[in-house]
């Protein structure tokens, strides 16, 4: 959308962020993305542990660096009606990014928050790596560029007001979306925007507002779309009215990646009430009807014979066997020291966002238009163009606000499928996956097996080895565009090197446990996996936090005191101290109840979680209280951050205690929330306290931070309450339902 820059760039700040004036009738500013990796912190050692790769450069840094060469990433426009419009090349799926970025604009431009409008950009191929929403990198990558764009816009409206009033810019102040003179004259930004857009306008030095003067950033703020959400006005993909796009569903195979052999009752199904069209696509048989109710009836009535899928003979027991065989051996023999060994298994977990996989597609002979909730819209656009045989620039991909993601919407399978159906049917379609299909043929967090060995002597931990064997996590969305997505498809290095990069740049131990090694080995199974909130960390770090409790017990130390002693940084100790005091650590609990605690450090942020569990019935435990503290360096919206931590806690309660997928002969058994036991109100604590530590640096990542510590805390509390150390997760995981027919 941005025209080529009209002006010489304006350089801002010591790091030299660039902004450009875009030729437009109203003030339009584009900002570059550029940043530098933050230097690693130093460890004050007990038995010092060398920094892990994730200590030096983490995944967020890599995503940020990958995006560095792309210009005009952000476009900010001051409208004549005083509204300020930011086009954001990211997805909003509930994580609160539109609110946080609106706050940055409001802060830097001195404009009321409700005058800032943030919209999600269409797929913009020129952004290359820079339109991926993931890795908890959004605020980290946007914090300075958004403020820079807004600061440049502010300098321009001030310069325009200076001309109008004949008052030097230095004597003007901005407040409430207007420029004011000392003698009481003022002009709204909307009045000034045309003059501020002139390329000949002289502006002085552009300076970012000092963080000490922030009064929007850092203040708890409600979501900008909250009112639309509580009144039913928020529009998701399936709520959009695209002319002619009728309800469409797909009959899917009885096993993952099966394909259609033949339909035996096509004429009868075409004649069913409301049915408009039917087509065979690579993933199954698509039916379009007047209503989704009729599309569902028709797809259920189809009689189809199927070709086999990619994992037809595979069940949980086989997968677990493969994972156990794949775990790499330990290096340290437990001969001369005391040691602990522990093993853990984690089941597959469905992302299961409330809004099932869905997309609208209108594919014509010479162009196509797509609407969907997409976290990697560029590679979606490129792949769809290839699949339907159109040049990339003839495919328009709109990013729609999504009803949850948790990693799921990194994949664009619904958008691709909708495009294929639209092409085959020669009509626009509104595609919705059924919940059963979403759970069985959608994406899932890969199952994993963990082997941990720690050695200790004389009160010190000498070595800590963690061997992770995981079903392959699919990263074939690459960094969001076709080049790296293609690299991830290559057979040799391919997905595994991506997986290793993600593992090594996210997983690290916050403790000085001597020689620490964390290694991943993946088993490539052709299943639909994908990054799930906190990717490897939920299981990997969750398991480690259980071993930390085990070590504390072996060394005869209290779990909090032990962690305090071995944590690497004061920030980590501070969040631990916060939950220990606020949560009254060590208080006496009735029989069957217990406390548990854990710490996690990732994405330049750290958190501690303390829970109390009621496990009087070990088969039906409930987390009754949680106390969480998080240090994210610089919180933008503490209220949104607390929401993310609450979400991480609920994810941890679910996946630790009850929610997972059983794989049986090539298909998950679970098909709805009555079977996949994601927590309900009755499973969650009635007392939750979440503390956000004061700002002390640059913004760190927050969206995925909460989950791993909560997993550890809940498992530790369960162990303490029941006297039984769980080794397989979710802890209570029977097939307590009749599976839906395949």
């Amino acid at each position, binding site marked *: 959308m941005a025209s080529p820059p009209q002006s010489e760039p304006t350089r801002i700040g010591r790091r030299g962020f660039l902004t450009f004036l875009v030729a437009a009738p109203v003030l339009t500013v584009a900002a570059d993305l550029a940043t530098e990796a933050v230097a690693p912190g130093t460890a004050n050692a007990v038995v010092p542990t060398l920094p892990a790769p994730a200590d030096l450069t983490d995944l967020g840094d890599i995503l940020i660096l990958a995006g560095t060469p792309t210009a005009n990433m952000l476009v900010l426009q001051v409208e004549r009606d005083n509204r300020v419009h930011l086009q954001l090349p990211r997805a909003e799926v509930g994580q609160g990014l539109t609110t946080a970025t609106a706050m940055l604009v409001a802060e830097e431009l001195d404009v009321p928050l409700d005058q800032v409008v943030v919209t999600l950009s269409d797929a913009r191929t020129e952004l290359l790596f820079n339109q991926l929403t993931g890795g908890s990198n959004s605020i980290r990558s946007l914090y300075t560029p958004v403020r820079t764009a807004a600061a440049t816009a502010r300098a321009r409206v001030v310069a325009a007001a200076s001309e109008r009033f004949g008052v030097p810019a230095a004597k003007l102040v901005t407040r409430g979306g207007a420029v004011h003179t000392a003698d009481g004259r003022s002009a709204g930004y909307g009045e000034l925007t045309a003059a501020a857009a002139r390329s000949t306008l002289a502006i002085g030095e552009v300076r970012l507002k000092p963080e000490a003067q922030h009064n929007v950033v850092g203040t708890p703020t409600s979501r900008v779309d909250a*009112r639309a959400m509580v009144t*039913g006005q928020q529009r998701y993909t399936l709520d959009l009215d695209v002319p002619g796009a009728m309800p469409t569903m797909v009959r899917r195979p009885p096993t993952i990646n099966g394909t259609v052999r033949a339909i035996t009752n096509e004429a009868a199904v075409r004649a069913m009430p409301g049915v408009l069209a039917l087509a065979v696509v690579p993933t199954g048989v698509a039916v379009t009807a007047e209503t*989704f109710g009729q599309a569902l009836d028709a797809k259920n009535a189809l009689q189809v014979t199927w070709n086999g899928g990619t994992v037809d003979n595979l069940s949980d027991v086989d997968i677990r066997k493969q994972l156990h065989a794949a775990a790499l051996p330990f290096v340290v023999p437990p001969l001369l020291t005391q040691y602990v060994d522990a093993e853990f298994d984690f089941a597959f977990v469905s992302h299961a966002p*409330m809004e099932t996989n869905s997309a609208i597609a209108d594919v014509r002979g010479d162009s196509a238009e797509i609407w969907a909730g997409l976290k990697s819209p560029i590679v979606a656009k490129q792949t769809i163009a290839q699949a339907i045989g159109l040049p990339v620039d003839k495919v328009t991909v709109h990013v729609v606000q999504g*009803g949850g993601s948790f990693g799921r919407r990194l994949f664009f399978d619904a958008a691709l499928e909708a495009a294929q159906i639209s092409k085959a049917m020669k009509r626009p379609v509104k595609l919705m996956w059924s919940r059963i299909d979403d759970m069985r043929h959608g994406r899932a967090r890969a199952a994993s097996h963990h082997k941990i060995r720690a050695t200790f002597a004389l009160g010190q931990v000498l070595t800590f080895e963690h061997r992770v064997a995981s079903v392959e996590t699919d990263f074939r969305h690459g960094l969001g565009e076709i080049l790296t997505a293609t690299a991830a498809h290559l057979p040799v290095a391919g997905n595994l090197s991506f997986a290793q990069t993600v593992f090594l740049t996210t997983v690290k131990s916050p403790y000085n446990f001597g020689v620490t090694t964390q290694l991943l080995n993946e088993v490539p199974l052709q299943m639909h996996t994908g990054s799930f909130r906190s990717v490897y960390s939920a299981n990997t770090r969750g398991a480690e936090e259980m071993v930390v409790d085990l070590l504390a017990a072996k060394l005869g130390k209290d779990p909090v005191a032990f962690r305090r002693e071995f944590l690497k940084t004061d920030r980590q100790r501070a969040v631990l101290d916060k939950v220990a005091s606020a949560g009254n650590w060590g208080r006496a609990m009735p029989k069957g109840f217990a406390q548990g605690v854990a710490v996690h450090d990732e994405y330049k942020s750290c958190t501690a979680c303390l829970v109390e569990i009621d496990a009087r019935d070990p088969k039906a435990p409930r987390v009754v209280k949680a106390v969480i503290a998080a240090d994210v360096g610089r919180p933008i919206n503490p209220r949104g951050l607390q929401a993310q931590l609450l*979400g991480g806690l609920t994810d941890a309660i679910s996946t630790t205690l009850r929610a997972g997928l059983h794989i049986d002969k090539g298909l998950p058994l679970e098909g709805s929330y*009555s079977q996949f036991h994601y927590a309900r109100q*009755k499973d969650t604590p009635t007392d939750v306290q979440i503390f956000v530590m004061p700002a002390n640096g640059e913004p760190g990542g927050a969206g995925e931070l909460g989950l791993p510590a909560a997993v550890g805390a809940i498992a530790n509390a369960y162990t303490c309450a029941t006297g039984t150390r769980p080794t397989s997760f979710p802890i209570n995981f029977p097939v307590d339902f009749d599976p839906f027919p395949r």
Partner: protein
Amino acid sequence: MPNYTFSVNGKTVTVDAPADLPLLWALRDKLGVKGPKYGCGIDVCKACTSHLDGEKINPCVVPVSEAEGREVTTIEGLAQGDKLHPVQEAWLEQDVAQCGYCQPGQIMAAVALLKKTRNPTDAEIDEIENVCRCGTYFRIREAIRSAAAKM
């Protein structure tokens, strides 16, 4: 196909639909009422929770024929013009929503609960089965407590 006439958020509507078409699809696909959401289609996730003659229902499993001559209220019908229902106000005050997809159903379930009991206990709040995959349950609980205190 038969015609069914009923009221949706105070407005009389007539739809031409098969008798067994779930009310959810009559609302969404025929009447353009998009507040109630699909999440499961089998009365499990409760994202579509609405009211029929003031009683909580899940339109994904209620045939449209059952609505004949009755009053359907969806999330869109809860506010009086610009004036929000106290439960909606409480939702804003607690900033409950994350992705927001389940929240119309959560709010309609909370309104139904508060109609039944003015001061719900934790155990009564626990009985709300609506799934929130973003995990906002604690804020939902706080919002219900707050709305109860104000109503």
